[in-house]
């Protein structure tokens, strides 16, 4: 009897739990999941925040909702948006954060990213992008041939081989490079074209402020020196006026080795880069069937890459930034706390010795 009573009460408890009133819980249909947020600069205190919320089950024509508010505090902005939206606004599905160039140059990006990094609802793999002109505009623009702007932006900023020159900065990456005295942040720089968005170049940051942009190819070299194995295809022209010969190389493997002389007073760094690739296109006068010419081309490409890397390093030295993280080679052997001043000192005084070795693995299956 006792056992029967026990069992019935257990079953009753299980069934009855369905009758509880739970006001706070919301169903998926009642949630507005923010997918992308764009930030535009208004003045020192105020920021224009635009959120985009995809609505898969929406009955209206537009599948994406947009809300814009001017606000001083981010969380306050969400409260304002919630009062406009028909559903509960949540951040669990946040994928992309866009900042206008002006906003980034004013140096407020770090603060905003820290805000989202703190929020346990937001994952760390949120992609970042800097936008030429207005960030709101990109979010609100429509691309009729793409499923939705949100997924398009997210896919664009996700790692792919042909855009491997881009650092694909996530929220974690940005905070890592911003808070690490060795590194300088790099974020993809986007530009709105007629019916698409393009990763135009890469924005460089120094102490939280965007200072310059660097071109695709240079960024590709930076990625190579940082030790990325799979790189974007490389186009190199050389000869007189850099126009005599042109090659298009799909890079198969790259290997970088950076060694320092561990001397803080007169720092010297040796950068060795090994590239292996397949030749896809060649314009020039060489007869590549001859082994000698083939070898000569390899040498020529190595020389050109070396020259370009040296130019890039000089340019970075002039800007006093070091996105490659060369100072890490000195920090590893330095006793004491490493500071940004030490990094700056290294950048100013360092002497580079660049060595590039390029190897052609194949030229396709035609003779």
């Amino acid at each position, binding site marked *: 009897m006792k056992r029967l009573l026990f069992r019935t009460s257990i079953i009753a408890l299980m069934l009855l739990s369905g009758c509880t009133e739970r006001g706070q819980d919301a169903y998926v249909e009642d949630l507005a999941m923010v997918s992308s947020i764009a930030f535009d600069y208004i003045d020192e205190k105020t920021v224009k925040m635009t959120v985009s919320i995809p609505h898969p089950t929406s009955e209206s024509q537009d599948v994406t909702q947009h809300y814009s508010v001017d606000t001083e505090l981010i969380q306050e902005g969400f409260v304002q948006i919630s009062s406009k939206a028909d559903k509960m606004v949540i951040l669990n599905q946040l994928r992309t954060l866009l900042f206008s160039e002006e906003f980034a140059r004013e140096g407020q990006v770090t603060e905003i990213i820290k805000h989202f990094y703190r929020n346990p609802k937001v994952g760390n793999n949120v992609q970042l992008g800097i936008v030429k002109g207005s960030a709101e505009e990109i979010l609100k623009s429509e691309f009729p041939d793409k499923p939705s702007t949100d997924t398009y932006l997210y896919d664009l900023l996700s790692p792919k081989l042909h855009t491997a020159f881009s650092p694909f900065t996530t929220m*974690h990456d940005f905070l890592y490079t911003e808070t690490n005295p060795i590194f300088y942040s790099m974020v993809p720089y986007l530009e709105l074209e007629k019916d698409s968005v393009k990763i135009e170049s890469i924005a460089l940051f120094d102490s939280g402020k965007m200072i310059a942009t660097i071109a695709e190819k240079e960024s590709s070299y930076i990625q190579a020196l940082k030790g990325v194995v799979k790189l974007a295809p490389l186009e190199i022209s050389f000869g007189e006026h850099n126009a005599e010969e042109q090659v298009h190389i799909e890079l198969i493997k790259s290997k970088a080795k950076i060694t320092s002389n561990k001397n803080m007073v007169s720092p010297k760094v040796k950068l060795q880069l090994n590239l292996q690739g397949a030749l896809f296109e060649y314009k020039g006068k060489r007869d590549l069937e001859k082994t000698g010419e083939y070898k000569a081309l390899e040498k020529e490409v190595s020389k050109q890459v070396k020259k370009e890397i040296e130019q890039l390093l000089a340019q970075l030295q002039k800007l006093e930034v070091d996105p490659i993280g060369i100072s890490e080679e000195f920090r590893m052997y330095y006793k004491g706390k490493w500071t940004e001043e030490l990094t700056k000192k290294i950048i100013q005084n360092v002497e580079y010795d660049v060595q590039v070795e390029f190897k052609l693995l194949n030229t396709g299956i035609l003779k």
Partner: protein
Amino acid sequence: MHIHQSKTLNGYHVVFLVQNVMIGSALLSLPNLLSPVGYSQWWFPIMFGAFANLLLIPMIWIARQNHELTLFGIHQKLFGKWVGTCINTAIIVYAIILLASVCEGYLELIQVVALSDRTITGPLFIFFLLLIYIANNGIKSIARFCIASFFLVTWLLYFLTWGFTEGDIGHTLPLFNFTREEFLAATQKGFISVVGFEVILFYFPYIIQQEKAFRHASYGIWICILCYLSTTLVSVMYYSQWQLENVMYPVLYLFNAVKLSFLERIDVLAITLWVFFILTTTAAYLWVAKKGVDSIRGMEKKSHLYIIALIIYLMISLPLPKEFQKELYERIYYVTYGLMIWPIFLCVVQFVKNKKEGIQ
């Protein structure tokens, strides 16, 4: 049949008991606790392991001298009934506060990460039901649960590979980049993570192969240290020093780095699975507290367990002043360090006593 009165623990039970009671909520924040020494922290778990193993020697020695007695019994034997009972009462109070601090720490984390739109009363209640269920059947039941939870949770270590591939191995150098003050601060905070192996003093009488207990317990310690080492190493590689200092649960954020096409937010999965580690740690201490009350009252009763659980439940759910609670939970770890050195003192007393008896 009285399961408590016979020897029930095999060698592997001891290995997993030691290992699982050690891993509690401290692992989640270990890289943060060790952050005063910055990047040099990655090898600290090895040092802690060596310390723990050294401290294990007097524990096993004193336990083997009195192989039929738990630490409560040893106290009463060495110091007489009154002093022994006083020390035992202190240990019970200590176990209760430690339990409350572990439970509350974990549930707060759950509240922040997984259930931020609810209160924790419900989960807390279910947690306690499970806790009582595990501790109810004695130390063997806890040991079995330890084995199960080890295999249910440790596979999560695989998810560290994402952090490992993204990180920079160069951060591991230089090895000794800290001052003495930083070293002491990190050790003081981080040594909490290895607390838990001393529970062997209480379940030693239940071990079948007591002569091999030292070896088995050492295996347990080093399995645990291996888990710690992998997390600190990956954290050092993946984070900047600022992040190590400021991210409260670096291990959770490491799981956050995982990119799988079919599953997002591994960290929420990890934090909910972590309940197994918390359950084993708390169940062992609950069992210790229950044994303590048994020894003081001179009888074994199930109701002791329920009363202790109720006290802890009330401690967590009653609105005590936050500052007081925080202070209490932080101070309790000093008692833990004391308890770890305590067996050395006991050894001396035992040694003197043995000599005296030998002379007589």
